[in-house]
Each structure stands twice: as structure tokens, then as C-alpha cells.
């Protein structure tokens, strides 16, 4: 290659870094004339720091900014004939090649969903449940799953043996957990395969959109316009995949297998904490359930409740009746009560019982139409008779 060619590349890179450095009056340093443009964002992050309020936002913005700058740098280099394989020159940019190159630069991650900042799903790629996997299976090395051999090297041998004897139940639980993990791993693979396919379809869709713009005057002349069109294509492709029956099955498998794993881990944890004398989730749930029922019961007896109103009304009626009965000359009943009192005074043990019965019978008579009232009145009268005695 000619020295002019290298000078041209070096010149462009230096121009970018010089402009970048000028932004902060020379505060930024140029690590090397061929350093990636996206590295400038690293320096920028370090210079400005992060506050609690903007940390997540900065992470997200920087992550996406790097992907975008990476695309621009690839286009720049292609234009300079650097052999990036993405075309340029008279034929224009080959988008498929640009997309492929951008993905390669990002380590084959999806550049547009990789930068989740402090989001708990940051490590998860396309798997929304991966964050739950962290730190929950201490005996299991997740990293081995991605290595050649996968499960056969990662899984404990106990999965292949029948369980028996004193530790039978314990071993069965562990086997169940590991089988669950295996199933989840498979589900995760299927889910990721679909999302990857959707991304590839998005690139093809982008090609069709570009074809519509091949007429003179309709070409895309900024990377932002290319980027926006790519996002549109990816979204359309994703929506098509996401609404497919295959995705529905894959999504359900991913979530359901994950829940099975988590449930079996929780079972193990509950057994262990139980042995240590600590309260378990199940016990706490039991208390919370009872608490919810009590709150429900308590509230159903307040605030515009018709049943409570009826009870209050009934109680008021009973009080009126009892008051009526207590009046000295209200009715013949009062005489009977007085007689009962007298007999109780003369022979406490026997008389008390007689007076109780007599009073109860008498009181029952006038309020028979209302069974509940009658019972309560009967008890009240009996009690008052005994009290008097």
C-alpha cells in the first residue's frame, strides 16, 4: 500500500481526535492515531464522572453512542479504501457488510440491546430472566455451559445415578434442580436463536428499504438516517417474530423453565434455612395470607356495610326491648323477674337455676318473631337474673 493511503487514514483519525480533544481544551488525550473513535467516549465518561442521577443514563447513552460512532468510523474507513469490506467508493456503502462489521466490532452482541447500563438484565443479552440466575446456584458453574462440551462437563455426575437410602429425597431434589437447569438452558438457546434470526431478517428488511431509495435524490446521505432506517427494519422484523406462534412457545418455555429452576432452588434454601432455625418464605407467606384474610374480614365489617347496619339496628331494637322489660310496671313479666330474684335470694343455688329458666321462658315469648333477637334477649335476661342473684 502506498504511503499516501496510510497518511490519509492517519490524517482522518488524527482529525477526529484533534476535534475531540478541542472539545475540552486539550483535556482529552489521543491514545494513538489509530485508536477507535468510540474510545473517545470512554475518556469523556472518565472526565465528567457520574452522579447518582445520571449514571444509568450516561451508561446507556455511551453504550449506544459507541455503536453509532463505530458505524461512522467503519464508513469513514471504507471511504478511505481501508479494506473494511463494506464497499464505499462509487458503488456506495454495502449495508449488509456494514451491519456485519458493526456486530463483529461489538463482539457479536446485538449493539442495540447490549447497553443496558445498571439494569439488572445487563448480563442477560436477549434473556430477560438471566439476572435471576446470578448467585443462586453456588454448586453450579454457569460459565461452563457456554464452553465446548456444555452440560456434560458442567453437570454433576449425580444426575445419572438412581437415588436411594437416607439421602434419597435430598438427591432427588438436586437432580430435579439440575434437570430444570438443563431444560432452561435449552429454552434459552431456542429463545436466543429466534431473536438472532429476527435480527438477521431485520438486515434483509433493511436491504429492501434501501432498494426503495436507490433512485437519484432519495439516497441516504447521513449515518443517522441509515441508523434510523435500520432501527425501523429491526423493529418491524422483531414484531413479526414476536407475534409468531414459535416465539410464543419459546417465550413461555423460557419463563416456565426459569421458574421451575427458581422454585427448586427456593425449596433447597427453605430446607437449609429451616434447619438453621430461621423463618422460611413459606412461613412468612402463611402469616401474610392470614393477615390479608384478617384485613379483609375487618374491612367487610366497616364502611357502608349493609350487614353491619342490620346488626346495629337489631342491637338497638334489643336494647329497647330489654329496657322495656326492666321497667317496674311495664308488664307482668317484671313481676316474674322480681319473684325470681326473691327465690334466688332465699335459696341461692337452686333458685338461681329456676329463675334463669323462668326468666328465659318469659322473655322468649314476646320476641319470638325475631329469632336472633330472641336468643340474645334470652341470654341477656338470664345473665341479668344470675347477676341479681
Amino acid at each position, binding site marked *: 500500500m502506498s504511503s499516501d493511503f496510510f497518511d490519509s487514514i492517519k490524517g482522518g483519525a488524527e482529525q477526529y481526535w484533534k476535534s475531540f480533544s478541542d472539545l475540552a481544551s486539550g483535556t482529552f488525550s489521543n491514545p494513538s492515531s489509530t485508536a477507535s473513535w468510540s474510545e473517545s467516549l470512554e475518556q469523556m465518561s472518565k472526565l465528567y464522572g457520574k452522579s447518582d442521577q445520571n449514571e444509568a443514563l450516561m451508561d446507556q447513552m455511551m453504550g449506544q453512542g459507541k455503536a453509532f460512532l463505530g458505524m461512522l468510523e467503519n464508513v469513514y474507513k471504507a471511504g478511505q479504501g481501508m479494506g473494511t469490506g463494506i464497499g464505499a467508493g462509487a458503488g456506495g456503502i454495502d449495508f449488509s457488510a456494514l451491519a456485519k462489521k458493526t456486530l463483529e466490532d461489538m463482539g457479536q452482541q446485538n449493539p442495540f440491546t447490549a447497553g443496558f447500563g445498571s439494569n439488572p438484565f445487563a448480563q442477560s443479552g436477549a434473556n430477560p430472566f438471566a439476572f435471576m440466575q446470578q448467585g443462586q446456584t453456588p454448586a453450579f458453574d454457569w460459565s461452563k455451559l457456554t464452553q465446548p462440551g456444555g452440560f456434560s462437563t458442567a453437570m454433576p455426575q449425580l444426575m445419572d445415578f438412581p437415588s436411594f437410602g437416607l439421602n434419597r429425597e435430598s438427591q432427588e431434589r438436586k437432580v430435579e434442580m439440575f434437570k430444570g437447569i438443563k431444560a432452561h438452558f435449552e429454552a434459552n438457546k431456542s429463545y436466543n436463536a429466534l431473536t438472532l434470526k429476527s435480527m438477521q431478517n431485520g438486515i434483509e428488511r433493511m436491504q429492501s428499504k434501501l432498494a426503495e431509495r436507490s433512485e437519484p435524490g432519495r439516497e441516504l446521505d447521513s449515518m443517522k438516517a441509515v441508523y434510523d432506517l435500520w432501527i425501523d427494519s429491526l423493529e418491524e422484523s422483531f414484531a413479526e417474530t414476536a407475534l409468531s406462534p414459535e416465539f410464543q412457545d419459546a417465550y413461555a418455555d423460557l419463563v416456565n423453565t426459569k421458574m421451575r429452576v427458581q422454585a427448586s432452588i427456593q425449596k433447597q434454601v427453605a430446607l437449609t434455612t429451616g434447619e438453621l432455625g430461621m423463618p422460611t418464605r413459606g412461613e412468612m407467606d402463611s402469616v401474610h*395470607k392470614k393477615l390479608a384474610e384478617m384485613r*379483609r374480614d375487618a374491612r367487610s365489617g366497616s364502611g357502608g356495610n349493609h350487614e353491619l347496619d342490620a346488626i346495629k339496628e337489631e342491637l338497638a331494637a334489643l336494647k329497647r326491648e330489654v329496657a322495656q322489660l326492666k321497667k317496674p310496671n311495664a308488664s307482668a313479666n317484671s313481676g316474674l323477674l322480681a319473684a325470681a330474684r326473691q327465690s334466688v335470694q332465699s335459696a341461692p343455688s337452686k333458685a338461681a337455676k329456676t329463675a334463669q329458666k323462668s326468666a328465659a321462658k318469659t322473655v322468649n315469648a314476646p320476641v319470638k318473631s325475631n329469632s336472633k333477637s330472641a336468643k340474645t334477649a334470652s341470654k341477656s335476661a338470664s345473665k341479668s337474673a344470675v347477676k341479681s342473684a
Partner: protein
Amino acid sequence: MMPIKISPEKALQEAVKFTQKLSAGMQTLDKLDDVHYGCTEKEAIYSEDKLVLYRFKSEHKITCKTPLLISYALVNRPYMVDLQADRSIVRNLQAMGHEVYLIDWGYPDRSDRFLTLDDYINGYIGRCVDVVAARHKLKAINLLGICQGGAFSLCYTALNPEKIKNLITMVTPVDFQTPDNMLSHWTRKLDLDLFIDTLGNVPADLMNYCYLSLKPYRLNSQKYVGLVDILDNKAELENFLRMEKWIFDSPDQAGEAFRQFIKDFYQGNKLMKNEVVLNGRRVDLKTIKQPILNIFAEQDHLVPPSASMPLKGLTGTKDYTQLAFKGGHIGIYVSGRAQREVPPAISKWLKERD
């Protein structure tokens, strides 16, 4: 020939410009104050458990004699209706003479895991309706249900028709199984019993991730690349951060209520079949004879218009009005167009029926 015509110089210029904007934005971000939300003064007039019922204090004369109670969804926080001074449905309704109340569900924790849909609908909403009605010495008040809160409002009104005078549903799903409903599509084969028995309450982050993954490229990438364009504008950046705060400020979901909501509404589509049962009482939408105003957003990706529009014809009302808003699920509360169109439409409709 490929239709991307970008010279190396153009690419370099664009990269430099992008970096310049980002750098300027960093300085703006550095100087930003804490972002506040909620602009209208309010007072708590009733509370129980984590719930608080608020009355918004108004500087305007109340001309509409029937107060309006807003029942928001359990997901996300209700301050979306009063986000900031120039983006507040509440403030606009007040200016038009309405007394506005709002239910804040709070943040459920594990002690709330066994709250059921009946606890939320006939319990919490019911008692809030009673409190507002008692304050105004009225037998019935106006109810505005938003999103999931709209589905709850339909259930409540069907079971307690004497307590609601006019019903407004906003971005409310009724048919939960339309072909374009991605959320519904994803939930259809989930084992909800296993899900809730394992998780207890549904974590907020899981809910957020699910919403983001409905449009993963737009919401995780494009939004933040586009943000660079407004980074040098402090006011716009604050608006953006306020929205971000709202989007990710989500409560966990009480397990039993979530289980029932997904099984009955999403998986069983029972609301439109009149098969939802709350504490032994069947929700029959035909019993709703009140005037209904149903507002939906034409570009709503969470509750597509096709999910809201079937309400027409499912209830027993003879006074049904439908309003299609040109915007999305979030824009219907906070966009400039929303402020110009939605509160005036609600106010006019309510005043004609006051």
C-alpha cells in the same frame, strides 16, 4: 448500486458533531438539579395499607358539581397524570372547573402478596368512591380509569352501578386477545401458578424489562442516540429525565392480583365474555348503563386500539362516546397534543352530563 452515499469526510464530520453534542450534553447533565415531578398541590384525604387517596387543591372555581376520581393502573405510578406544570391532565381539568381526586396504590411489598383483584376493585376503589361521594354528599361520582385502572373501573361500575354517574375509560383494554397485542401473545402460555408461587410478587424490574422488550431497538437504543440532539437543552433534558424516572419507577405487583389478572383477563379474555368473578359476583358489562367515554391512542403498542374499541356494544349504556387520540400510550398523558385535546374533551363530555 447501494443507496448509501456518505463520503469519508461526511462521516468524519458527523462523528465530530455527534461527539461535540455528547460533550456539551455531559456538561448539561453535570449541572442538572434533581428532577421533580408532580406539580399540583394535593392533600391526602384517606389512606389504608399502602393506598392513599388524594384531592388536588385547585386555584380555580369548581363549576362541575360531580367530582372526578382517577383510578390508575397498578403498574407504574399515577403521577403521570400530573407530571409537570405544562404536562398535567389534572391541572387542565382543574382549570375547566373540575374537582379531581386520585388513587395512589403505593408500592406493595411481600405482606401484600395475597391482595386479590376483589381487594383492589371492590375493596380499595370501592372505599375511595365512598369517601369521595360522602365528602360531596352525593350518591354517585364520576370515575376515570386509566389502562389497567380502566379495566378495574369497568368491573367496579358493573358491580356497583349506583355509585358511578359517568364512566371514562382511557387506553383501557377490553378485548385482551387481539392479534396485534404482543403482551397478550407472550402471556398466553405462561404457567401463571408456577410463576406467582415462585416469585410471590412480580418484581418491578421484570415488568420494566418486559415492556422494554416490546420494542427493544427503539427503547434501548434509538431513544438514547436521539437524546444526544437535546442534550444541550436543560429544560428538554429535564423533561426527558422526568419521563425516565416515571418509566422505571414501577411498583412490584401483588402476586395474587397479578395471577388473577393475567389468567382471567389475558389468558381467559373473560372481561368481554362477562365471565370475570370477583368475590363470588360475576362482572356483567351489560349492567353498565352509565354514560361512557372511551378514549384510546391510535399508536398504542401496549393497549392497541383494537383492544379498547370493542367496549362499544359490550355494555348496556345508550350513551357511548369514543375518542381516538393521535399518539401513543404515553403521549396520551404528556404530549402537547394531549394537553390540547384530552382534558377539554373530557371536560366537555362531563359537563354535558353533570
